[in-house]
């Protein structure tokens, strides 16, 4: 395997007698009864750069947030430099020597870098004035070779500069273990390289660095060891990078066997949705779309896999006409709907399950009956051109609640009070109506428990077997693989590749997910 000059070999990172920098074992953590981590472990030695890789939702960030005191673990043991600790706040963890740089920086925009550092240091130690903070920053920046200007206001800094300020801040707080959560996701190629080289130098000076990532290139080029997580568990603990290749890592991330059962037993028919050359320019917080095109047939599920933030939200937004692409055409059942409003596309048979159901799907504060009727009131389903028969609306809602077995629901109850699975059923009950011909489902089972997930998937399966066409966009690879007839992978706003399900291999998906076709 190739590695850049200057990068270390897979050195033996643990030596007897020297305590580990960080040791986590048997860590469990649930959110609202759903396990995010179960029996996860992680061992970090001083002087190494250690990568944690895994799919979205594998538990990488959660595990490190536990270590950094952001979340309290439900169970498990943690030591820092051999000392047992269960940090109850990030401050406690940093005081013990572990500091985390999150994807969203924790800096006050209107302050200078020095003021931010002063704010974090509080009344501890010798640094009590902006001048002293500036001097400390300058000294630290020089020591570790990271250019940071203490006098500049954070709002004026570029993303890379903010990240450097955040790193220096965390180190000044006393961290000798630095945890970076997907640090290169927000950087350009050049900036990423500079950061990773810095990280290597820092390890060379005796610090320990944890790099949460899903890019194999970074693992291979700059890390000593790698830990792989899947579904909240550690599936490979601290293997030397030199002994692994990309295919193996991809296989461990995704799982040994690709689940392929449960696909709708229907054969693709006529083209129902045809998208070509869909292009959207990037916004300040939005990924652009680069000439996306695909055909979707009746009775077919086209799965779109990909790491979140690669344009999935923007694609859905364009498909339902909440965003206007700069170019591209869209045909629904052969009819050109490129310029059509959300309402016209709905009338043409398009239905949507958005990834965040309370963003563009449901209204949290509305009664369940109101959400069930949201798209049909304007079509006159509950009385003439003007009137609204609320009694009829409640009656229809009661029928839907029974048909979809929505637990804890009454027509008048506020939708936001339902559990995630039952709120999703409200959405399904509305979207999977008789007029539906094309279903766009974006992460339809995200955040749901096993039973609700199965309900959602079998509802989609039945709809497709009944002749609907389904575009399934999901970060959950298992979901895409188990339901789709064809699989495409999205990366940086483009479709990186598309194959029939029989030709899909973990290596192919792994390579496209990581961004090299």
């Amino acid at each position, binding site marked *: 395997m190739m590695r850049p000059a200057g990068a270390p070999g897979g050195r033996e990172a643990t030596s007897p007698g020297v305590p580990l920098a960080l040791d986590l074992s048997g860590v469990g953590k649930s959110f609202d009864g759903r396990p995010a981590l179960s029996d996860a472990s992680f061992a970090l030695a001083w002087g190494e750069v250690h990568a944690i890789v895994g799919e979205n939702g594998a538990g990488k960030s959660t595990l490190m947030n536990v270590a950094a005191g952001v979340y309290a673990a439900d169970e498990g043991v943690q030591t820092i430099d051999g000392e047992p600790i269960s940090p109850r706040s990030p401050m406690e963890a940093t005081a013990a020597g572990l500091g985390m740089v999150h994807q969203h920086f924790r800096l006050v925009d209107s302050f200078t870098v020095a003021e931010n550092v002063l704010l974090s240091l509080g009344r501890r130690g010798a640094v009590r004035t902006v001048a002293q903070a500036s001097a400390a920053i300058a000294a630290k920046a020089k020591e570790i070779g990271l250019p940071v200007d203490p006098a500049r206001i954070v709002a004026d800094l570029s993303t890379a500069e903010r990240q450097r300020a955040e790193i220096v801040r965390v180190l000044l707080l006393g961290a000798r273990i630095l945890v970076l959560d997907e640090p290169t996701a927000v950087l350009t190629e050049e900036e990423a390289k500079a950061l990773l080289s810095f990280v290597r130098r820092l390890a060379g000076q005796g610090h320990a660095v944890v790099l949460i990532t899903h890019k194999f290139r970074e693992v291979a080029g700059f890390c000593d060891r790698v830990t792989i997580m899947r579904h909240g568990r550690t599936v490979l603990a601290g293997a030397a990078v030199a002994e692994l290749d990309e295919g193996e890592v991809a296989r461990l991330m995704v799982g040994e066997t690709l689940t392929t059962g449960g696909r709708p037993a229907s054969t693709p028919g006529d083209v129902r949705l045809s998208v070509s050359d869909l292009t959207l320019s990037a916004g300040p917080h939005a990924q652009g779309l680069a000439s996306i095109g695909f055909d979707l047939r009746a009775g077919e599920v086209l799965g779109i896999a990909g790491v979140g933030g690669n344009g999935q939200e923007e694609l859905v937004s364009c498909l339902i006409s909440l965003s206007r692409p700069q170019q591209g055409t869209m045909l629904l059942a052969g009819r050109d709907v490129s310029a059509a409003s959300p309402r016209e596309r709905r009338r043409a048979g398009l239905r949507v399950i958005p990834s965040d159901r309370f963003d*563009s799907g*449901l*209204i949290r504060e509305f009664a369940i009956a109101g959400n069930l009727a949201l798209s049909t009131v304007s079509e006159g389903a509950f009385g003439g051109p*003007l009137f609204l028969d*609320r009694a009829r609306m409640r009656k229809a809602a009661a029928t839907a609640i029974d048909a979809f077995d929505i637990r804890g629901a009454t027509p008048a109850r506020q939708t936001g009070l339902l559990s995630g699975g039952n709120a999703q059923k409200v959405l399904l009950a509305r979207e999977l109506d008789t007029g539906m011909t094309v279903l766009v489902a974006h992460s339809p089972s995200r955040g749901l428990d096993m039973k609700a997930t199965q309900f959602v998937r079998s509802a989609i399966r039945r709809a497709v077997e009944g002749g609907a066409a389904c575009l399934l966009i999901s970060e959950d690879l298992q979901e895409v693989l188990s339901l789709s007839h064809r699989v495409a992978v999205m990366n940086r706003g483009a479709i990186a590749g598309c194959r029939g399900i029989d030709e899909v291999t973990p290596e192919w998906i792994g390579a496209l997910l990581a961004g090299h076709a």
Partner: protein
Amino acid sequence: MLDAAFLVRRQAPGLVLSGFCYAGGLAFGLAVSAALLVQAGVPADALVDEFLIATFLTSDGLAQTVTAALPLVLVGLASAVAMRVRFWNIGVEGQLWLGAVAATWLGIAGGGPDGLRLPSMLLLSAAMGAAWIAVPLVLKLRFGVSEVISTLLLGSVAFLLVQHLLFGAWRDPATGFPVTAAFAQAARFGALGWGQLHAGLYAVLVVAALVWFALEHTRIGFYADAVGLNARAARANGLPVTGTIVGLVLLSGALSGLAGMTIVAGTEHRLNQSVGSGYLFSAIVIAYLARARPLWVVVVAVMLGAVFTAGSVLKVFYGISEGMIVLVQGTVLISILMAQFFSTYSLSRPG
């Protein structure tokens, strides 16, 4: 140990709990107000007399309360319908001034058959109110200009326009004061023979009933709530988002304009510099306390009419300043809003 406790949002506050909280807030607010008024020199035993008996339990007092409530119902509705689509109409007074100006123009210029005078004044004042809010509406929809600023500033522009007219073309030639000449009889709402109460009552009742029906029993209210609570979901589900916002915001301006007309045609019978002042604050108070529900707007407006009535009595007989009356309103509002907090959150102390 309060530092070990934190606030938890209640899942669904019960009716009884909310009822107690509101009643408690009202009682607290009234108690503080009473203390303030006593401090300002009103004898304690006169408070009950002026606030309850003189405003609701005597014929004259009740008539005055209802008369004062008429424009309050309209501005309260104006604020409420805009609030339903999350449009902050801070320019209620400006639209009210424009409605008053429009009504005055027809009121003093005359022309046309007498029987059509009041209907045309109603229509024109509503249209002018709507036109005045159309400017901030277009600015918001087209350029994203915050309506909080634009409606507020246009309120001042409207007042300066009134001053311009009162010190210029419309100054009463008989007295030379900055007021217009009195309206012709045909341009006044007829007295109903009960205190100052006038036929504007019918117009207000009809308008309030229409707004109530539209918001509670037609699609308009459904659209408005959907747009106000989650415009993205409303748009994605094919609702006419822009149409709903435009319709209700114009209605808000029209209602404010009508309020101006009922004041000049009902009680003042001329335009002067004070007909529109104080209504902005009242409109927001009413809409908030009524939670933007039309029926409650009417109830709260009558209550506030009573405060106005009592206030004018206090002003005359006890030398209480205008500011004191606003202070009483503010105290009651803040108390009730604070009470709302208690019904929304509970205190949790983890083990």
